[in-house]
C-alpha cells in the first residue's frame, strides 16, 4: 500500500512497524518469562505431569469439535437459505438472529441453570456445546451469508438448469466455494469454544468432563496461587489454538477478505 522506493524508506517502514508491534509483544514475553520464573522449565514438566491433562485436552477437543460441527452445519444451511433461497420476511428472521449477537454469556447463566437441570443436560457436554453454538451461530451466519452473496447467483442457477437440485447445488457448488469462509468460521469457533471458562466451570462438574481452561485451577488453592505454573499452563493451553490459526491462516484471511464483513 505504502510505497517505499528508497532503501532508507524501506528501513524506516520496517523500524516503524517493529516499534508499533513491541507493545503487543511485551505482554507475551512477560507471560513466557513468568512461566519460567522460580523453578524454570520444571514448571512446564509439573504442568505436563498433571495426570488429568490428557483427559482435559480430550474434553476440550470434544467440546470444541462438537461446537464447530454444529456451528458449521447450521451456519452453512442457514446462510445458504438467507443468501440464495426465497424466504418471506427474511430480514425479520435475520434481525432476530443478529439481536442474539448482543447477548453476553453472563446473562445466559441464570436461565441456563434451570434449563440444563430440567432437561437433564447438566454435567453433559451438551450443556456447554449448545449454548456456545447458539451464541456463535449469529455471527458466523452473518459472515457466511455475506460471503455467499458474493457467489454469483448465475452459477447456482446454471447448475439448477442442468438438472441439479437445490441440495446438489448446495453440496457441489456452495460448499466447495465457501471453504475460505469455513476456515474463518472454524478458527473463530475454535477460539470461542476452547477458551470458554464460565460454562464448563459451572456445567461440567465431573472431573472426567472438565476442560483445559480449568487446568490453572490445579495450581490455585484456597491459600496458594502458583503464578509460575498458572502461566505455564496458560502457554500450554494456547498452543493448539495458535497451531490451528497458523494452519488455516491463508484460508482464514481469504475468507474474511471476500467481503465477509463489509
Amino acid at each position, binding site marked *: 500500500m505504502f510505497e517505499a522506493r528508497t532503501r532508507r524508506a524501506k528501513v524506516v517502514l520496517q523500524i516503524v512497524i517493529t516499534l508499533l508491534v513491541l507493545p503487543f509483544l511485551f505482554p507475551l514475553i512477560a507471560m513466557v518469562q513468568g512461566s519460567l520464573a522460580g523453578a524454570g522449565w520444571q514448571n512446564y514438566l509439573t504442568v505436563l505431569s498433571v495426570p488429568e491433562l490428557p483427559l482435559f485436552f480430550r474434553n476440550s477437543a470434544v467440546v470444541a469439535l462438537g461446537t464447530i460441527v454444529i456451528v458449521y452445519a447450521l451456519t452453512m444451511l442457514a446462510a445458504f437459505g438467507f443468501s440464495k433461497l426465497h424466504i418471506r420476511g427474511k430480514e425479520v428472521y435475520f434481525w432476530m438472529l443478529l439481536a442474539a449477537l448482543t447477548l453476553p454469556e453472563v446473562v445466559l447463566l441464570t436461565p441456563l441453570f434451570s434449563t440444563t437441570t430440567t432437561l437433564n443436560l447438566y454435567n453433559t457436554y451438551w450443556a456447554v456445546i449448545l449454548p456456545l453454538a447458539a451464541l456463535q451461530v449469529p455471527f458466523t451466519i452473518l459472515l457466511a451469508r455475506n460471503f455467499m452473496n458474493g457467489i454469483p447467483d448465475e452459477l447456482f442457477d446454471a447448475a439448477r438448469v442442468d438438472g441439479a437440485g437445490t441440495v446438489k447445488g448446495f453440496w457441489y457448488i456452495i460448499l466447495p466455494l465457501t471453504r475460505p469462509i469455513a476456515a474463518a468460521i472454524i478458527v473463530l469457533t475454535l477460539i470461542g469454544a476452547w477458551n470458554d471458562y464460565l460454562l464448563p466451570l459451572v456445567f461440567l462438574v465431573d472431573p472426567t468432563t472438565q476442560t483445559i481452561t480449568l487446568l490453572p485451577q490445579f495450581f490455585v488453592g484456597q491459600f496458594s*496461587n502458583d503464578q509460575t505454573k498458572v502461566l505455564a499452563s496458560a502457554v500450554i493451553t494456547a498452543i493448539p489454538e495458535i497451531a490451528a490459526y497458523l494452519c488455516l491462516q491463508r484460508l482464514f484471511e481469504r475468507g474474511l477478505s471476500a467481503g465477509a464483513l463489509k
Partner: protein
Amino acid sequence: MMFQSSVAKRRRSTLIVALGVATSLALALVGCSSSTATASGSATSGKITWWGWTPEIGVGKQYIAAFNKVYPNITVTYKQVATASYDSVIRPALASSVGPDVFNMAPGGGIGSIGSYQGSAVDLTPVVTKALGSNWKSKVAPIGPSGLTTSSGKLAALSVGSTFAGPMWINPDLFAKYNLTPPKTLDEWISTCQAFKSHGVTCFEQGAGDPGFNMDLIHAISDSIQPGLWTQASTGKAKWTNPVFVQAWTIFQKMFSNGIMQTGALGTQQYPDVNNDFLAGKTAMVMMGTWYMQYSTSAGATAAVSAAGVANAKPFPVVSIPFPDVAGKGNPAPLFGDADFGLAVNVKSKQQKAAETFVTWLATNEKAQQVVSNALNDISALTNVSPSWPDITLVDSAKQQSTLDALIKQAGTVTEPRLGAINKALGQALGVASASVAGGKATPQQALATLQATPGIG
C-alpha cells in the same frame, strides 16, 4: 415438468433439513445422563462426593485417608472449587440431581452462605445427638453451631473447625535483619514502616481491593477502640454512625497516607498478591487469620513458599503478633471468628446415610478432629482436642510453638463472630463503605451515614 422437479427437489431438501433438525434434537436428548441410585443408601458403604472451597486438596485427602481407616467401604471423592467460583458452581449443582452428597457451607452472607443453601441441607441435629449425646453442644466450640443453625432451628451443617481473624503475621527474619521490633501502637507501626521503607522493604501489605479483608482490618481497629461494638452494630443493636466507628474508619483511611499501607494497596488482592509477596519474603507484616498457622509447619511453609514462585524454597518461621493497640485504649488484642466451614448433607443425595457418616465422623470423632487440629488450618471443633506437637514439625519450634499455643488457647474463648453476624446486604454495604473511604471518595462520616441508611442490613 419443471413444477414437478422443483417439488421433488423441495422434498429432498426438506428431507435433508428435517434430518438435520431431527439429529440435533436427538443429540440433545442423548445427553440425558442417568445415574444409578440406591435410595438413601447404606451408612457404612457407598460412593460419595464432597465439594468445598476449603480445605486444600492435600489436607482433604488426609481427612479422607483417616476416614477410610475406619470406614473402608465408603469412597469419598473431594473436589476443591476455587473460592471465587464456589457460589456459581454449587448453585446449579444443588438444583440438579447429580450434585455433591456433601458440600461446604459457611456462616454469614459470604461464600457458601447458609442463607442461600440451607434449603438443600439435611437437618443434622439427630446425627450429632446420636454421636455426642444430648449434651453435644457442651463438647464443641459454641461458635460452630451458632453460625450454622438457621433461624428456624435447623442445624444445616456441622462445623469441622474454626478460623479467627485479628492477629497479624510477621516475617521475623526481616525484623531481625533490620533490627526492628514488631509494633505495639499506631505510632510504632508508622515508625516501623518508615524504617522498613528506608531499607526498600515493604512493611505492611493489605489487599485493600478486597472488601472482605478490609472488613477484618476495620473490625480489629474498632475492637481495639471498643470491643464488641462491631458485633452489636452488625445485629442492629448499635448504630454504624457511632463515634467509635467514625474513629475506626478515620484510622483506616489515614493508613493509606501515613505510610502503613503499601503503595497501590487499592489495586491489590489479599489472595494471591499479598499472600505471595509475604511468603516470598518481600513483605514484613500482613493481617491474616489463624488459617496462617499452617505455614508454621516445615512442609506447609516449604510448599507455600515455592508456590509463591520462589526457586529452591527456603521457608522462614512465620509468627503471629497481636493486632497493635491503634487507639491506645489498652483493650485486649482483638480476635473474632466462626466456623471456617461446615459440612452439609445434600437433601437430594442418594447416599445420604453414608454422607452423614462421613460428616459426623469428621466433625465429632476425636481421631478425626486430631487430624484437623494437626493440619493447623482450622482450630478443631471439639474443645478437648489440640494439636499434638510431637507429631508436627515446625520450621522453628522455639520461636513458634508458644505463640501458636497461646493463639489457639485464646481462640477457644472467643464468642465474637467474624462473618456470622453479617448478612449479604450488610457485607455489600460494608464493602462499599470501606472502598469509598479507602479511595478518599467519602469521609468516614459520609460513608457511615450511607451505610447506616442501607436497607436490610440489620
